[in-house]
């Protein structure tokens, strides 16, 4: 029976086939997938900021947010396509719309996000059709909040134990991380005097990200382990330190360019660590049969086997 190292709690006894995994690990690569998750989230939250900035008349900040949303969406899409086994067939994603597939919903969301932010950016740069550009910015506020949160469902809707069971907190972790990243990107590209809302977003996002991550690891119990051990644990701890530090700095970042730069970079690095850490924790939880077998065995022993109601 495989034993963990440095365990305080004794390992739950379980049986397996030579310690081999029961479920397959996610095959998504680094850095593509986690970078996509970061960029998509940043783009989405930046769109929400651009829309609200438009409504409240923060014009300079709106331009920065439009730019961040466009850049994140475009670069994110490139990473996602590169991740496919058959990149030339990316458009097969758009041959059907399947509500049962978060990847399908996400592809359409990304298509909307990419399209709207491109129109908004194009109009801002060229000055052509400002009304259309503004309408696209407002609409991208909606695609943006979907963009920043659907990725949590994308991960949770798998048999990967540390993801599936985290279905409640992952959306808040990702939404918080997205808000912090967008706040960071926008405050780095807006004159300090006009960047107040971006700093506020960075602080609020950082706090949400850290709290959601803590709640998740605690509630998951044994399935929280993959987020605490090994490389994933290092990444998650680094993420928390960077995000908290960056968030704290953001509260005073209005005072100098240096503080703004430090805060923005720390938050960005923290958000990236979150995505890499979550991907790695998922892999670990799929690789070790313990995380698949023990909760299922517990369910059977408790006389409450899984079933599919009403289907």
């Amino acid at each position: 029976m495989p034993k963990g190292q440095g365990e305080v709690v004794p390992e739950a006894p379980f049986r397996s086939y030579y310690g081999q995994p029961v479920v397959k690990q996610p095959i998504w690569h680094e850095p593509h997938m986690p970078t996509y998750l970061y960029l998509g989230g940043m783009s989405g939250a930046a769109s929400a900021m651009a829309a609200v900035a438009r409504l409240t008349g923060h014009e300079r900040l709106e331009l920065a947010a439009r730019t961040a949303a466009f850049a994140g969406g475009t670069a994110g899409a490139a990473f996602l396509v590169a991740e496919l086994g058959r990149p030339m067939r990316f458009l097969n994603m758009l041959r059907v719309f399947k509500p049962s597939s978060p990847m399908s919903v996400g592809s359409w969301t990304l298509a909307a996000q990419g399209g709207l932010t491109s129109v908004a950016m194009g109009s801002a740069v060229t000055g052509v059709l400002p009304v259309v550009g503004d309408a696209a910015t407002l609409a991208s506020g909606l695609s943006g909040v979907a963009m920043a949160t659907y990725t949590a469902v994308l991960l949770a809707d798998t048999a990967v134990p540390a993801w599936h069971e985290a279905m409640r907190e992952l959306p808040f972790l990702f939404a918080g991380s997205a808000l912090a990243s967008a706040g960071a990107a926008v405050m780095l590209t807006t004159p300090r005097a006009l960047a107040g809302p971006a700093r506020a977003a960075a602080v609020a996002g950082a706090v949400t990200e850290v709290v959601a991550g803590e709640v998740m690891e605690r509630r998951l119990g044994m399935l929280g382990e993959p987020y605490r051990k090994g490389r994933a644990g290092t990444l998650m701890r680094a993420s928390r330190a960077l995000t908290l530090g960056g968030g704290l700095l953001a509260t005073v970042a209005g005072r100098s360019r240096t503080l703004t730069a430090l805060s923005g970079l720390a938050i960005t690095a923290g958000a990236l660590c979150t995505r890499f850490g979550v991907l790695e924790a998922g892999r670990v939880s799929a690789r070790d049969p313990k995380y698949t077998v023990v909760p299922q065995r517990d369910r059977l022993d408790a006389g409450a086997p899984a079933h599919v109601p009403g289907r």
Partner: protein
Amino acid sequence: MAEQRMGFFTDTTVCIGCKACEVACKEWNDVPDDGFVFRATSYDNTGSLGASTWRHVAFVEQDGRWLMMSDVCKHCTHAACLDVCPTGALFRTEFDTVVVQPDVCNGCGYCVPACPYGVIDRREDDGRAWKCTLCYDRLRGGMEPACAKACPTKSIQFGPLDELRERAQERVERLHAEGMTDARLYGESPDNGVGGTGAFFLLMDEPETYGLPPDPVVTTRDLPAMWRWAGGAALALAAGVAVCFAGRKP
């Protein structure tokens, strides 16, 4: 739709571990080499199901007995792989089996971690996902799948699922009457977490011993709840952004 759902009943008590099924599957379906690995744990040299291993014979050596079991895609009633496939490459056939269309799959890889049994996988050289088709082409030609045809002990039985379930029930009862109380069916119940499998098994020990999940569940069962949580987070995000701007003059 055919009137009858077709499937496999794999009776592991008569399996002799000859791997004829693995070979027949490779031959018929033109499945590439999956690499020769000397695992040093048992006679198992294919390890697990994968993109190029559609039948996998597990060898479990226990005190006083050997367990052998030919594993395969379960062709789930509620198939997670099919539910999550964004391109529609995975589809349900007229035989109620689950098949990938290689000309549609774009290799997004989403089906791979979605399967609760760890069956489907992506071939890295070819970029697409592959798994057992339950010999869709043979079925359409009125033939039985290659593995069932090749199995010398009738451990792998192919047929209409209703008939297989009856036959399996009788077999378990007979084994119990003969004192083999370890015998149990795995996957056949329509009440389980995947709504019953089209390929089910008679096992002699707990499923995890053979590398099978003891109580799998189709991940999409919880999808409505997942969208609700994500929807809550999306609303919170929108509200959060609005609050950041509140009371700030441009």
